[in-house]
C-alpha cells in the first residue's frame, strides 16, 4: 500500500472510533468521560485554529485566548439577553472573533518577530482586563450559562449530542485545512513562510494574505469558545487570560507546528496527560512541565514529527 493510502486508512479508522466512542463509554458505564472527550475535541479545534496561524501563516500569535474566550463570552452574553439558539449565537461568536481579529491583526502585523508576539499578547490582556472589570460580565467569577444553546433539530442538552457536534466541527475544520493548504492561497502562505520579500516582489499582497490567515484562525477559535462555554456551562475569565494562550501554543508546539494533526495531537496529549496525572498526584503540572522540557530538548518537531506524519 502507498503511504497516502495507509494515511487515509488510519484517518478513517480513527474517525469511526471517534464516532463510536460514546457508545463504548456508555457500555463501560463511564459516561463521565464523554464530557472529557468533548473537551478534548474542543481544545483540539482551538489548537488547530492556532496552528493555522502559527504553522501555516508563520505568525507566532500569543493572544489566541482573546478569540477563544471571546467566543464563550458572546454566547453567554446573548443567552442573558434571551437568545439561546446556537444557529444565531455561534455564528455571532465567530463573527465577533473575526471582527476583533481584523482590528488586532491589522495593527499587530505592522510589527515583526518578538514585537508581534508581545503586541498580540498585550491586546489579549487588554480584552481580559476589560471583561473582568465589567460588572455585567460577572467580573472574576465569569458568566454562567443558564442552559445549553439549542440547536434545533438536535438536543444539545444531551452530552453525547454535544460530543458529536464538536466532532463534526473538528472534522470539517480539518478537511477545510487540508483543502486550504493545497489551494492557491495555501501555496501562497507556504511561499510567505519561505521568503516574504520574494513573495512581495512577485506581486502578492503579503499583509492581506497574512491578515486573512490570522482572521480565519480567530473565527474558528471563536466557534471553539462557543462550544466550550456550552460544555462548561460557563464563560470563564481564565479562558481569556494569557496562560490560556500559552497552553494553546504549547499544544501546537507539542503536537507539531504546521502539521495538519499537530493541534489535535497536542491537545489530546496535554489534556490526556493532565487528566491521567491528576488521578495520581496533586502536582500534575510539575510532571507535565518536565515532559515538555524533554520534548523541547529531544523532539524538536513535536509529536507529529515523532510519529513521522507528513506535513500539510
Amino acid at each position, binding site marked *: 500500500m502507498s503511504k497516502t493510502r495507509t494515511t487515509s486508512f488510519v484517518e478513517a479508522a480513527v474517525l469511526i472510533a471517534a464516532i463510536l466512542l460514546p457508545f463504548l463509554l456508555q457500555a463501560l458505564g463511564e459516561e463521565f468521560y464523554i464530557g472529557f472527550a468533548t473537551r478534548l475535541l474542543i481544545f483540539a479545534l482551538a489548537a488547530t485554529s492556532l496552528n493555522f496561524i502559527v504553522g501555516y501563516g508563520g505568525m507566532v500569535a500569543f493572544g489566541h485566548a482573546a478569540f477563544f474566550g471571546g467566543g464563550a463570552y458572546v454566547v453567554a452574553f446573548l443567552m442573558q439577553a434571551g437568545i439561546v439558539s446556537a444557529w444565531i449565537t455561534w455564528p455571532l461568536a465567530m463573527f465577533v472573533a473575526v471582527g476583533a481579529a481584523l482590528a488586532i491583526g491589522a495593527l499587530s502585523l505592522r510589527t515583526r518577530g*518578538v514585537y508581534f508576539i508581545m503586541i498580540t499578547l498585550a491586546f489579549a490582556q*487588554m480584552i481580559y482586563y476589560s471583561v473582568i472589570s465589567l460588572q455585567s460580565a460577572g467580573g472574576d467569577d465569569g458568566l454562567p450559562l443558564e442552559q445549553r444553546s439549542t440547536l434545533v433539530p438536535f438536543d444539545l442538552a444531551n452530552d453525547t449530542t454535544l460530543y458529536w457536534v464538536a466532532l463534526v466541527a473538528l472534522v470539517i475544520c480539518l478537511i477545510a485545512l487540508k483543502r486550504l493548504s493545497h489551494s492557491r492561497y495555501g501555496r501562497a502562505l507556504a511561499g510567505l513562510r519561505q521568503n516574504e520579500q520574494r513573495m512581495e516582489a512577485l506581486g502578492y499582497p503579503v499583509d492581506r494574505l497574512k491578515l486573512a490567515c490570522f482572521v480565519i484562525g480567530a473565527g474558528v477559535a471563536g466557534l471553539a469558545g462557543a462550544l466550550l462555554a456550552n460544555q462548561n456551562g460557563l464563560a470563564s475569565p481564565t479562558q481569556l487570560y494569557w496562560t490560556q494562550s*500559552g497552553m494553546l501554543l*504549547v499544544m501546537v508546539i507539542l503536537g507539531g*507546528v504546521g502539521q495538519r494533526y499537530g493541534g489535535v495531537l497536542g491537545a489530546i496529549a496535554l489534556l490526556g496527560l493532565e487528566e491521567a496525572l491528576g488521578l495520581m498526584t496533586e*502536582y500534575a*503540572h*510539575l510532571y507535565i512541565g*518536565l515532559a515538555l*522540557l524533554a520534548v523541547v530538548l529531544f523532539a524538536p518537531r513535536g509529536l507529529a514529527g515523532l510519529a513521522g506524519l507528513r506535513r500539510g
Partner: protein
Amino acid sequence: MTQLVLEQLLNGLQFGLMLFLIASGLTLVFGIMDMINLSHGSLYMGGAYLGAAAAQASGSFVTGLLAAMLGMAAIGIMLEFLLLRRLYLRDHLAQVLATFALILIANDLVRMIWGPQPLLLNPPEALAGPVELAGFSYPAYRLLIIGVGLLVALFLYVLVSHTRVGMWVRAGASNRPMAEALGVDVRWLFTGLFALGAALAAAAGTLLGPLLAVQVGMGEDILILAFVVIVIGGIGSIRGALIGALLVGIVDTLGRALLPTLLRAVSSPEVASHLGPALASIMIYLLMAAILFWRPQGLFPARA
C-alpha cells in the same frame, strides 16, 4: 486633591521602580540573546517565597532579602547553564514551550514546598509606621522601597554606561556577532547577566512581598507588565527599561486612582462606574499600543 495626586505619584514611582528591577534583567536577556523568557516571573515568585521563608526563620527582613537574592542568583546560574543555553539558537517557539514549562514546574514546586496558602511577609518593624512628608503622612516602608529602587537604578546605570563589563553588555545588545568577533565572551557574560537579573527579580519579589500577597501565580501578572515595560522602552535597553517602568508604574497607579473621579466629572455616574475601572486597567496597554504605533522599536531601540 493635590495631596492625593502627590501620594499616588509616589506610589506610582515606587511601583515603577520595582517593575524596573524585574524588567532590567528581562530586557538584557531579550536584547542580547533574542530569547523569550516567560519564566522570569517565576524567578520573581521564587524570590518572594525564599525571602519570606528566610525572613520568618531568621526574624530579620534584611536577611530574608539577601537570602532571596543569593538563592535566586544561584538558581538562575543553574537554569542558564543546564537549560537556557541550549535554547539561544532555537526559534522563538521552542523558547516559549520550554520557559512555559518552567512556569508550570515552578508553580507546582512552590506549592509542594510551601503549600497553597499565601505566605505572610512583614515589613521591618522600624519601618512599619508612617512618616510625615510635606503636609501628609506616607508609609515609611514604601519610602524605603523607593530609595532602594533608586539606588539599584543608579548602580545599573554606572555598571552599564561606565564600566568595561557594561560596554560588553551594550555591544552584545546592539550587535552580538560583532561583539563576539571582537573578543567578548558573550556566553560567559550572559550567565552573569542572567544571575544578576534573577537576583534583581528576587529583590523585587521580597520588597513587594509585604505590599502584595506572596502566592502561587504572582509571577504571571507581573511578567506581562514587565513585557509591556521593555517593549515600550525598546528591547535590550536599560535606559528604556527605566523610562518604560516609570511610565507604566505611574500611568497605571494614577489611572486607577484618578480615572473614575475624572470620568464622574465629565459623564453620568453610571457610565463612570462601569467604564472607569475597565479603562483604568487597560491604560498601560493603550499606552503601549500608542507608542508602538509611533515608534515600532520602542522609545530607545538598542539595536542600531
